[in-house]
């Protein structure tokens, strides 16, 4: 593989009291800049019930931002698929694929928060089953043919999506996974494993072996596209990068810990409340453009990843800082990584 795609995760999460119209305007400005600088994709995640943080919802957000960034791919990364009804998801993504001219990526994962499962009337123990049957139904619906299928919580009776997909046979299906059984599921059901932002590189190396073994068992080739999410803090100097990374990482991971994200991570790598320095190692990409490029190349060599989805706007970082980071990465990191491949 001799290419590398660079995407940006727009978290769209802000503390109470922020002027969300102003923040929205800034996100649109970031998107226009990414379009101009040749980034490859925009990612928006999905969480419900995020009080005391504000979060913009994934589908409205991605549809609005596509108007600002007409050549970037749009990654719904991830959709909490166990919560949803497959006809709803299949239809919405068909419309989005069509409106965007075939630029959608369908990320999906199980989710882990009780407040979300309850809110959608999904018993906690039913998550895995619903995820699998929903994904099967979505894929079948995406064929564009009438589908009849009885699931545990829905029935398709000759149901059919209302517009065709632009991407054939369907948008890429990236399955997000932290824990080992989830990685096996990703190998079995997805077009690729969408590597999460939380785990250390050494854990990922071990899990990659598991992923490859499961692909072999399924008779599936290693995917042509292998994406990873990472927190990236890039500044002109190493010291400056450390400085901008500190406070935002601290608050972000406190929130994750409170939600229980660490409970779904593998044993030995599940205490995300460690001090930042220890936390950052092999987990976040922090440094000068040279250091960042070198680390990305390292990820590429060790894991084979070729689409890096970067979170560059941690909690509290001002817009000017984010725009500078986007410029710096495009100007100095992109060419170094591409030369080094």
């Amino acid at each position, binding site marked *: 593989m001799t290419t590398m795609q660079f995407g940006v995760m727009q978290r769209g999460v802000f503390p*109470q009291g922020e002027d*969300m*119209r102003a923040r*929205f305007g800034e996100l649109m400005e970031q998107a226009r800049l990414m379009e101009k600088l040749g980034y490859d994709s925009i990612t928006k995640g999905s969480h*419900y*019930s*995020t*009080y*005391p*943080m*504000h*979060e*913009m*919802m994934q*589908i*409205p*957000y991605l*549809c*609005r931002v*596509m*108007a*600002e960034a007409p050549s970037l791919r749009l990654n719904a990364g991830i959709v909490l698929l166990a*919560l949803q*009804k*497959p*006809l*709803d998801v299949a*239809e*919405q993504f*068909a*419309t*989005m694929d*069509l*409106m965007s*001219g075939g630029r959608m990526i369908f990320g999906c994962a199980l989710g882990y928060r*009780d*407040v*979300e499962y*309850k*809110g*959608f*009337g999904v018993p906690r123990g039913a998550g895995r089953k619903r995820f699998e049957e929903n994904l099967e139904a979505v894929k079948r619906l995406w064929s564009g043919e*009438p589908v009849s299928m009885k699931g545990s*919580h*829905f*029935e*398709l*009776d*000759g*149901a*059919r*999506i*209302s*517009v*065709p997909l*632009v991407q054939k046979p369907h948008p890429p299906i990236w399955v997000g996974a932290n824990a080992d059984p989830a990685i096996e599921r990703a190998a079995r059901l997805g077009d690729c494993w969408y590597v999460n932002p939380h785990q250390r590189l050494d854990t990922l190396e071990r899990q990659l072996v598991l992923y490859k073994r499961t692909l072999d068992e399924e008779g599936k080739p290693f995917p042509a596209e292998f994406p990873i999410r990472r927190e990236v803090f890039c500044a002109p100097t190493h010291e400056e990068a450390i400085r901008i990374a500190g406070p935002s990482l601290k608050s972000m991971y406190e929130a994750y810990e409170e939600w229980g994200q660490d409970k779904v991570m593998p044993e030995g790598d599940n205490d995300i409340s460690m001090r930042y320095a220890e936390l950052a190692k092999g987990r976040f990409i922090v440094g000068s453009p040279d250091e960042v490029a070198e680390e990305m190349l390292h990820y590429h060599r060790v894991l084979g990843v070729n689409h890096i989805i970067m979170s560059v706007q941690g909690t509290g970082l001002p817009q000017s800082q984010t725009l500078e980071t986007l410029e710096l990465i495009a100007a100095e990191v992109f060419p170094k990584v591409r030369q080094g491949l």
Partner: protein
Amino acid sequence: MADMQFGLMMRGQFPAEDDMQQRFAELMEQARTANKLGYASLTNGMHYSSAPFQDFQQMPFLSRIMAEAPGMRLNFGIILLSLSKPLDIAECLATVDVLSGGKVIFGAALGYREVEFLAFGTSQKERVLRFEENLEAIKRLWTEDTVDMKGSHFELKGASCALKPIQKPHPPIWIGANADPAIERAARIGDCWYVNPHNRIDTIIRQTELYRRALDACGKPFPDEFPARREVFVAESREKAMELCKPFLKKKYAAYHEWGQDKAMPEGDDDLGLDFDDLVRDRFLIGSPDEVAEQMIDLNRQTGINHLIMSVQWPGMPQSMVLDVLHMLAEDVFPKVRQG
């Protein structure tokens, strides 16, 4: 007339063989045109599994189209509320309200198609209960920091819609209703009854009285905004208008009839399978600019309707005809209605 708002309904339904990327580009052009001509709102409906037509999904469509029509209100007209989960709808609509600068209208109705109920794991029998509890939950999520509420198919346990709508206390809630009991429900739980496109105008006049009485019974005033959807077409003369729109409009109503929409309509006005001329009479607003303006003024006088959501395109109708109608309405009809 105090004030009349004119909205454009984009059904977004097209024949199976159409190139939908092309149709989408045309709808974007219609939105820019309507925005420029001063139309007040854009409406998109909601259906799943829309065969024999192709159709865009509402949430993505309205979220995208707002970029083309920054001056227009965005009407989710309607959401099939008994199919959805309240946390999902509350949070998505709140996001659209923020992204659009407070332009969302939340239209809601029961739905009636079996293929939709089944796919969402519910049934005709549960629809009224789910509709009412969903609406209650959404209102609470929009106005309270965190909500505890146990519904028949969801449980909110300290759940939040953390990003609140810009409109306070929340976006207007329009309740779509055809049948008499649904109109009484609209009076009870909505900000207004959203008058459907199908019922005859004499039926609507009768039902407006019913609505008024139901409002009185709840101690609620008649709403400031009283919206109605109508099929509208205008050309130089009535004959020309009928000739131009008939092939497309006729086909659309044949499909409604087939889907069973008329089963949800009140007795005595529950047949959409009528011969076209009978179907049009006293139901759709079609004619020359003077005639259409007159029909709109009459409708306002007889019912108080003051936001007209107009469908001017039916499956198969070409873009050039739609743009002509948008211009003729804005230039020759709206000023007459406003004067009248």
